[in-house]
């Protein structure tokens, strides 16, 4: 069968540096021009197209990229990823309304908070494997949401209102309905994240994650400090989730615990698997499609989630490795635990 991923990788590997730069710039330009295509068939019938591109699409892409480090690269099943998103958003909400700090100053603080939470969760949880890790992370996500819901000092069920917009830079003003500016800002963050993950993937950390994902026992025997690298994967994934949270809060200007349910974690997981676990471009594509699709098919209003679920089932049955699966060579290895 025609494999888009292998074809793309082939083109990339055969071309020299100038062509690669051209391809990359072309891709970035295509992504940056997305908000300008509002009037075309891409338009979303009910929600504002520009705003859909920012949330859910761009935010989903950032979160899916972060979750991909945890699930796709190192094979750790995390069902509570929304917790880090929530921690980032609440950091922005609390600091933004109670102190004079602006979004760009809060961004590193939010990331640090999410990383710290990842560390606290990771140290006990990462000793567990597979599905146990899944349920612990799921529980953590719920704990964060329920805590936010029940602590009245941070708004309780009402959430936090009046979060300030990011300050004006280069004369560009972040007003609530200036969706294009937000989109381009988030695009820069997405590119930075992709760049970070690509750099890490080809280095020691990337190789360690790869070996842990394929066979943790063998990796440990070969001298890979698996626990430490699993923590690293977890904390890095958390940092990206935290960043997405800060950005989300400074876009919507209002957050409440309802924005951070388990469904979000599951949706992001679906983005990662749907697009192709472990492959950055697959994950980006998956997040774009799953973020965009429910709003695009809103004309079938009541049944749109039903159709969405059916698409997930159908896709997984037709292409279980996702739209753009990772390189084929790894699949020759037998599945672990199939005894």
């Amino acid at each position, binding site marked *: 069968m025609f494999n888009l991923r292998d074809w793309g990788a082939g083109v990339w590997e055969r071309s020299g540096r100038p062509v690669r730069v051209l391809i990359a710039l072309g891709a970035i330009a295509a992504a940056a021009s997305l908000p300008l295509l509002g009037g075309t068939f891409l338009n979303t019938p009910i929600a504002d197209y520009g705003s859909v591109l920012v949330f859910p699409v761009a935010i989903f892409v950032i979160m899916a990229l972060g979750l991909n480090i945890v*699930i796709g690269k190192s094979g750790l*099943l995390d069902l509570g990823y929304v917790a880090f998103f929530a921690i980032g958003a609440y950091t922005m909400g609390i600091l933004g309304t109670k102190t004079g700090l602006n979004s760009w100053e809060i961004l590193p603080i939010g990331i640090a908070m999410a990383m710290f939470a990842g560390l606290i969760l990771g140290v*006990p*949880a990462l*000793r*567990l*494997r597979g*599905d*146990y890790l*899944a*349920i*612990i992370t*799921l*529980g*953590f996500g*719920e*704990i964060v949401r*329920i*805590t936010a*819901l*029940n602590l009245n000092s941070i708004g309780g069920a009402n959430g936090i209102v009046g979060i300030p917009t990011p300050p004006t830079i280069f004369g560009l003003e972040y007003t609530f309905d200036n969706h294009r500016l937000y989109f381009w800002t988030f695009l820069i963050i997405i590119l930075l994240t992709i760049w970070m993950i690509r750099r890490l993937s080809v280095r020691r950390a990337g190789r360690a994650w790869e070996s842990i994902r394929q066979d943790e026992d063998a990796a440990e025997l070969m001298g890979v400090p698996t626990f430490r690298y699993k923590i690293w994967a977890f904390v890095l994934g958390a940092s990206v989730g935290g960043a997405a949270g800060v950005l989300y809060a400074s876009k919507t200007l209002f957050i409440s615990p309802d924005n951070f349910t*388990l469904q979000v974690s*599951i949706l992001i*997981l*679906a983005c990662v*698997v*749907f697009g192709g*676990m472990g492959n950055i471009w697959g994950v980006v594509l998956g997040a774009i499609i799953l973020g965009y699709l429910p709003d695009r098919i809103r004309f079938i209003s*009541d*049944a749109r*989630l*039903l159709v*969405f*679920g*059916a*698409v*997930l*089932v*159908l896709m*997984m*049955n037709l292409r*279980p*490795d996702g739209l753009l699966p990772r390189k084929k060579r790894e699949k020759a290895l037998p*599945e672990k*635990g*199939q*005894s």
Partner: protein
Amino acid sequence: MLSNFQDQFASLTVGGLSLGFIYVLIALGYTMVYGVLRMINFANSEVFMYGTFATIIVIRDLFGFTQQSEPATGFRLVYILFLCLIASMLMSGILSIFLELVAYRRLRNRGSNKLAPLISAIGMSIVLAEFMRILTDSRYVGSPRVMEKKSLGTFFGAELRLDNVIIIVAGLILFVSLSQFVQRTRLGKAIRAVSMNEDAAKLMGVNLNFVVSGTFLVGGLMTGAAGFFYVLKYENTSFNIGFELGIAAFTAAILGGIGNIKGAFYGGIALGLLETYASFFLGTQWKAVTVFIVLVFVLYFRPNGVFGEAITQTRA
């Protein structure tokens, strides 16, 4: 507070036990499938939700109960309740087999990666829940009262309410019959064989597809029974109750050791009691947090759950 707790301890325990048995039965749905396929059957929560609706359909449409009707008594009550139980179990059992055929079979036979069936299950779960949401107009559906919830007397200071007693007794009977089924019958032995070693079982002539369907059926039947008990106890349902109870039951399965039938039993009971006591001390809003914190502690010291994995033995 504490003396208050001592007064109510016995009654809370009875309520917690009946909640616990609901969890046990749903957890069995998760644990059976996990034992055989090593896969979280994420859509089991929706199977449960359809079970609750089957009971309400029988009460409301088959027997024509309305909110104003007099509760049934005597033999008629037994007959109605029995029919509800059967309807719920069948509904969930058949749905569960259907689920396996649509969402998992193809993926399993292709030997895909571990997460693809999970996403497929999530998709099915969304489809099932949304279908019910559209059918019910996103509303809660109340169940007419078929049974007067009278007290049968006290036992060491515990008030024995009729519905709780029925749930505890019937739950126990169902659990014992399930473990006997798995121990003694031909299909039960085949299920255990596949859960021990899939390839060897296949070589010994076990029809894998049949066993997997059987596992889903049995798990679905148990989950459906839980649906009936839920309606009996709480007298309402809605399209989204599956999620919360499903997560709790899955936690219970993990707590006891997933893939282990005995583990589901003790895990479910422990979780039911824990939730009830925690709600008493900290208020219902913190019960989920308490449960998860306990779970983290248990898994920290016993990473495979209290009773370890697998229907019969721990995986090497």
